[in-house]
């Protein structure tokens, strides 16, 4: 905890947060992937251990100079030059690496949003231990690393804990390496213009689904007795599993879909007042939970919020549309 407090107030982090710094970075090359890391985009500074090592070497050097102990002097120079040469190898570990696009999938509040970064080695030599971090305190990004062999590609994932619905911007990422000696850290900034959609949180025990839309009465909810062959058509790719008429399929030996959804489906239209919650966020959470539940149970469901109207439907795409509307509603 003490360490994190220290690094929070480090001048380095302060500089990094300045907008001027961002503009300066932009001038030096692209930050949004995909791009190939150019030499101007690789930065290098001694690590904390590098500074300790330098102090140690200075002590060794002063002692050796004072006593004119030439063997110790030679050792100090050997180590100093090896450290200096290692900067080149550290820099080279990053330079010329291809950074691919960042991928992410929508998540619910409370889950971790995963930003996936693809890396491609195309220069023909191995690149051990490439680390990815965000420099942010709230992101558990320690030990995210990857070693690439020559002509190999790989993926790094950075998990970001979500705490609110809406868009979650991918933080500015730092792809870095301290290989080989750990005395210097070379890094490149990656600022993907990528965001992750965060749906409202799902409740463990949401209130029961509201009863089907009784008021409308447009549709007869009772299944017709002999509707087996009513409105059948051949299966088209994209038809939902539930739309397939299994009996007819078995009989006709090919996939048959129903033209009209079965009337056994309840049609639900979720509205804010149905949740019975005064807290808007809580209400959205309940709605999101209902959407997921309704999709699971195979209902047709719709959403009616002020300024948002989604007619009842079913399917993964519809579920996403609904959850997206909830995630971004008045946000």
């Amino acid at each position, binding site marked *: 905890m003490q360490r994190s407090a220290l690094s929070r107030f480090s001048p380095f982090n302060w500089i990094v947060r300045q907008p001027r710094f961002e503009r300066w970075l932009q001038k030096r090359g692209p930050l949004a992937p995909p791009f190939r890391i150019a030499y101007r985009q690789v930065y290098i500074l001694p690590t904390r*251990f590098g500074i300790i090592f330098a102090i140690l070497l200075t002590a060794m050097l002063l*002692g050796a*100079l004072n006593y004119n102990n030439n*063997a*110790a002097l030679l050792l100090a120079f050997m180590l100093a030059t090896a450290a200096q040469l290692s900067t080149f190898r550290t820099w080279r570990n990053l330079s010329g690496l291809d950074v691919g696009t960042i991928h992410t999938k929508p998540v619910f509040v409370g889950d971790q949003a995963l930003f996936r970064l693809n890396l491609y080695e195309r220069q023909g030599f191995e690149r051990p231990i490439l680390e990815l971090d965000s420099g942010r305190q709230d992101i558990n990004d320690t030990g995210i690393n990857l070693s690439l062999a020559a002509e190999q590609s790989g993926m790094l994932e950075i998990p970001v804990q979500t705490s609110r619905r809406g868009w979650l911007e991918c933080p500015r990422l730092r792809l870095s390496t301290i290989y080989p*000696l750990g005395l210097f850290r070379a890094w490149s900034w990656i600022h993907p213009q990528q965001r992750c959609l965060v749906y409202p949180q799902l409740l463990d025990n949401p209130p029961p689904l509201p009863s089907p839309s009784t008021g409308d009465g447009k549709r007869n909810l009772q299944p017709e007795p002999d509707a087996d062959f009513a409105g059948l058509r051949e299966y088209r790719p994209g038809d939902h599993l539930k739309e397939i008429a299994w009996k007819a399929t078995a009989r006709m030996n090919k996939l048959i879909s129903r033209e009209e959804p079965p009337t056994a489906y309840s049609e639900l239209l979720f509205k804010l007042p149905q949740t019975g919650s005064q807290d808007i966020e809580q209400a959205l959470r309940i709605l999101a939970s209902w959407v997921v539940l309704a999709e699971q149970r195979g209902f047709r469901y719709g959403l009616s919020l002020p300024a948002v109207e989604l007619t009842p439907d079913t399917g993964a795409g519809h579920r996403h549309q609904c959850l997206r509307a909830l995630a971004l509603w008045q946000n």
Partner: protein
Amino acid sequence: MFTGFGIMAKLTKRRPLVQRSVVLWVMATALFAILPHLTRMPILLSAALIAITGWRVSRFYRNPHWLLRTITVLCAVFIISWLYEGLWGRLPGSQLLCCMLVLKCLELNRSRDAMLMVSLSFFVVATWFLFSQSPLTFVYLVTATWLGLTTMIVINRGGTEQSEIRSMFVQGARLAIPAVPLALAMFFLFPRLSVPLWGIQGGELEGVSGLSNSMSPGDISNLFIDDGPAFRVTFSDPQPSQSELYWRGPVLTRFDGKRWTQSIYSSVVTQIKPERENADLSYEIELEPHRRQWLFALDYPAIYPGDSRLGLDYQLRSIRPVSNVRRYQISSDTSFRDNRALNSTLLNESLRIPDHVGRRARRLVAEWQAQDDSTNAIMQRALHHFRDNPFFYRLDALPLLDDPIDEFLFDSKVGYCEHYASAFTFLMRAAGIPARVVTGYQGGFDNGEYFLVRQSDAHAWAEVWLDDEHGWTRVDPTSWVAPNRVQQGSRAVVDVPNWLHAPWLVDMRNQVDKIRHWWNKNIVSFNANRQSRLLQPWGIERVDQRQLLLLLIVLSVIISAIVFWWYRRVDHIQHVDPVVRAYHKLLHRLRHAGIDTPIHAGPQTVMQKVIAYCPDIRQQVENLFNRYIHHRYAAPNISVEEQPQQSNRLALARRLNSFKLPKRR
């Protein structure tokens, strides 16, 4: 349940624990660093350190409780300070550092600890150079650097497999080897201190052999078996004969019946000294460190280094103890006579003999005096006494217990140079002739371009005050008993096992000493003074430190550029897939055979062309190319089992390499 809005999750970011392989590497590095120190430690302490190391790498290891760790550290501090009566000084300091390094392994959990241990190991290696700077230590230095850097690489990789050890050492070498030329450039060009920043303590004599500032029987004989070099001499004038090479060391005037010690007057600077113009023999001495102040010279030094003083007894002393190999120019005036009138105190000291020893000797001298009282006659009688009576020069003389003078002169009659010098001086004093003992080295071995004087050439002789004309005159009673000692060197009279005298062995040792000499001359004794004359071979008399620094920067840039270019090359050669390399070679061969394979052509196109060229081996060509296409273009499989094995890879590369086009009919 997590319900926070805008509440940041508080995370403790902890680095993972190090792997077992990292522990093994780190412990190997630490052990290598303390290895030379172990030889100087008390056996129990070194055994304890090795045991802790062994326990740490064993599979039974558990981190001990912090209280136990603290107690162990305190114990180590206590034991060292008890053994050496304090913690200050080279020996206790370096051994404490060794203990701390090894004890740190009880806290080797994260890579931070591992890195710290490696850096500490480097420091321990550096402390060893306070004890030895022989050419062998250079080999040790390079190996330790290599091992340490390799370990650092392993730590940053997070561990190694058994099969990767070789490649790790290669990676380490790729940092260590290019560091050598750069380090040497810095070594010669980095500004040196001409005056130390803080004091240099002397007086620590542990483990350094050489003459001491006192003499009692047995002291010098210990040196006879020491073949280590004392100093080397390069004569610029024709070198004097062997029997004239008396290298003057400590002059011992006081005698307490057992020991000869230096007079306080030996530290008084003499006012009368040989004129510089009279110097007729000049030479350069490369003195191995002996941690004493005296410098060796032939009688009598006329031109000597500025930081040394010539005492009343014409012994040359440096202001600071010689703690490093030291080279100095010196010129002697061989015809100088130390014949100024003795001052009364010095005279008194040169005559004083304790009452409780040498009663029979005094009676003998009285007999001689009754016959002829002249100084010369007494001296001759004494020397003849040694030659005419059965006196022997042997190293295995019995210890003389109560009265070293009488027991030697009348009972044992067996001894070596210090017995003879001591007894002769005593006889002279008993006769009222001022006399003193001079210790130093006698002779030397002509090793081609220089003279090698070994510890075993240590010698003691006497000086007698004859008269105002001759002053102090050297008399070597040993030469009357064992003339070979002076004419042929110490080896002629010392009984060492025969095989040690085997010509090839002696020759080899002399060759080895040539390497040492070169090393001392160019590396160990390099200092600010030599640095300023660095460019003399190119006609530049003196360079100042700013110019040197400039030169260093230019050289570093050039060497770094070469190293970087080399890195690029090595990287590409090492890391390109052998299959790809073999394929490109194959394309090259096809081009030679007349098959047009443009760069943009993929393997499918190339395969079709090859089949068109030689349809009769179609099966073989298709087989080979399909394997290559599969290797290069098949969807990468995540599962470990199906990843291309290195052996498969090499097999395919070999097949590509061995593919030959049939001769066209």
